[in-house]
């Protein structure tokens, strides 16, 4: 993307019908470290790569519990992500106070999307620079949504955002058809494999990643380090290849003709298509 005369203001359209500030905000999401989500009929797993400024500092918190039945993984400007998480927690608590019942994920996601949209239509505001993978349970089952700075939201079987997320998406596209019926353990295993793809050769250990689960009868919680390390060891994936699938041949070549429920990531250098028009 290049600087041009239509990108100073979020309320300025370009002649091609694009809002560049919003697109730049989506770039910020792509720069953040990877976050992945997958869901089955009864569970949602969120996983993310831990990024820290230096070896001396702790890593940034990227997964937030919003309520017992909802959690969110963020990528992009973590400060924006924190603020939005606080908003989501507030909405859940307020709903529970009035109705003594859990806020349906689908409704929370719409409220979040409407909040993001406002920032694309006020000259004194800027879009939130964070993408959110919202995973949760409600009456109609387990759901995974992606909320975008543009104010759009989509429901997914599995998705990945942030830097090097394409590698994870490729893995997920191969396997997503099995997720709906997957067991909790296999879902977590697939999350770890997908996460490993984004590390591009770096070792996958419990200190470089965070995993969180929510499911029927299981409140949203982040798995502790020992559990994660045990899972990694159990699956023996620290340095090994992902197992060959039953369906696809063990060729790691992209079998991604079957574009998943996941929206394709249009390469940013394409000047003709605005990424948010999906």
């Amino acid at each position, binding site marked *: 993307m290049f600087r041009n005369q239509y990108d100073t203001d979020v309320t300025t359209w370009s002649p091609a019908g694009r809002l560049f500030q919003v697109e730049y905000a989506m770039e910020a999401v792509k720069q953040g470290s990877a976050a992945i989500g997958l869901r089955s009929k009864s569970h949602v797993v969120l996983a993310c790569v831990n990024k820290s400024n230096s070896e001396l500092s702790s890593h940034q918190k990227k997964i937030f519990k919003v309520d017992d039945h909802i959690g969110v993984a963020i990528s992009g400007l973590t400060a924006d992500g924190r603020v939005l998480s606080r908003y989501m927690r507030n909405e859940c608590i307020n709903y529970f*106070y*009035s*109705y*003594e*019942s859990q806020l*349906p994920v*689908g*409704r929370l996601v*719409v409220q979040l999307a409407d909040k993001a949209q406002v920032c694309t239509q006020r000259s004194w505001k800027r879009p939130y620079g964070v993408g959110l993978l919202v995973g949760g349970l*409600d*009456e*109609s089952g387990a759901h995974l949504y992606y909320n975008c700075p543009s104010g759009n939201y989509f429901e997914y079987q599995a998705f990945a955002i942030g830097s090097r997320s394409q590698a994870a998406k490729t893995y997920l596209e191969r396997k997503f058809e099995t997720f709906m019926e997957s067991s909790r353990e296999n879902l977590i295993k697939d999350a770890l494999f997908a996460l490993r793809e984004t590390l591009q050769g770096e070792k996958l250990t419990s200190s470089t990643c965070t995993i969180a689960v929510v499911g029927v009868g299981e409140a949203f919680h982040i798995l502790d380090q020992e559990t994660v390390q045990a899972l990694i060891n159990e699956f023996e994936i620290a340095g090994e290849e992902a197992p060959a699938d039953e369906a696809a041949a063990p060729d790691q070549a992209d079998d991604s003709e079957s574009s998943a429920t996941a929206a394709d990531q249009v390469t940013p250098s394409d000047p003709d298509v605005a990424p948010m028009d999906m």
Partner: protein
Amino acid sequence: MNSFDSNPATNSLISSEADSQRTLYPYVTGTSVVGIKYKDGILLAADMGGSYGSTLRYKSVERLKPVGKHSLIGASGEISDFQEIMRYLDDLILSDNMWDDGNSLGPKEVHNYLTRVMYNRRNKFNPLWNSLVLGGVKNGQKYLGTVSMIGVHYEDNHVATGFGNHLARPLLRDEWRENLTFEEGVILLEKCMRVLLYRDRSAVNKLQIAKITEEGVTISPPYSLKTFWNFSAFENPTHGAEGSW
């Protein structure tokens, strides 16, 4: 009801210019509502009387109403406040439907919402002068609860308002059981309503029974209970009462 005194001396502690807008005492009131859980859902019964003080003035007041797809509400107390509550509930259900997302408010959510409304009004010293019964079925789960004008709320297998608490609940405590059939439930409710008709002076002999199941709501057309007045004690009611005539 008269225990809530309208003595101006006590009112002045909390009075303001908007005093003329606060509910101080009820004018047109409905009497008891009785509700029970049965095999397929909930049954509610209420008569159709609207009393104006001691006058039985209005005799076709519908005190049982459906709320959304999954709930039924029955109200006793000030009828105009009940109409106001129905407006709130209609707005609530409308907003819920406008999401158009497959989720819907069940009886538990509506009951809790009403509790919040009633309690908040009570805190502002401007109550909605009602006792409400809220029943419904959602996803096979039966729910029956009640809220009073001061925000007291609870759920049970059988609930009642007003005189129903004193005359109907004892009968229900003895005779209610799990999984009553519809016919058994109606017989039980009619027994309660008959006792109320004999003993509650604000009761009128014209009632409706409402049923809610997973399939939906049915409110019966109005009908009357058979009564028997030929008890020998009624022939000479003051027989044996010293000093009476």
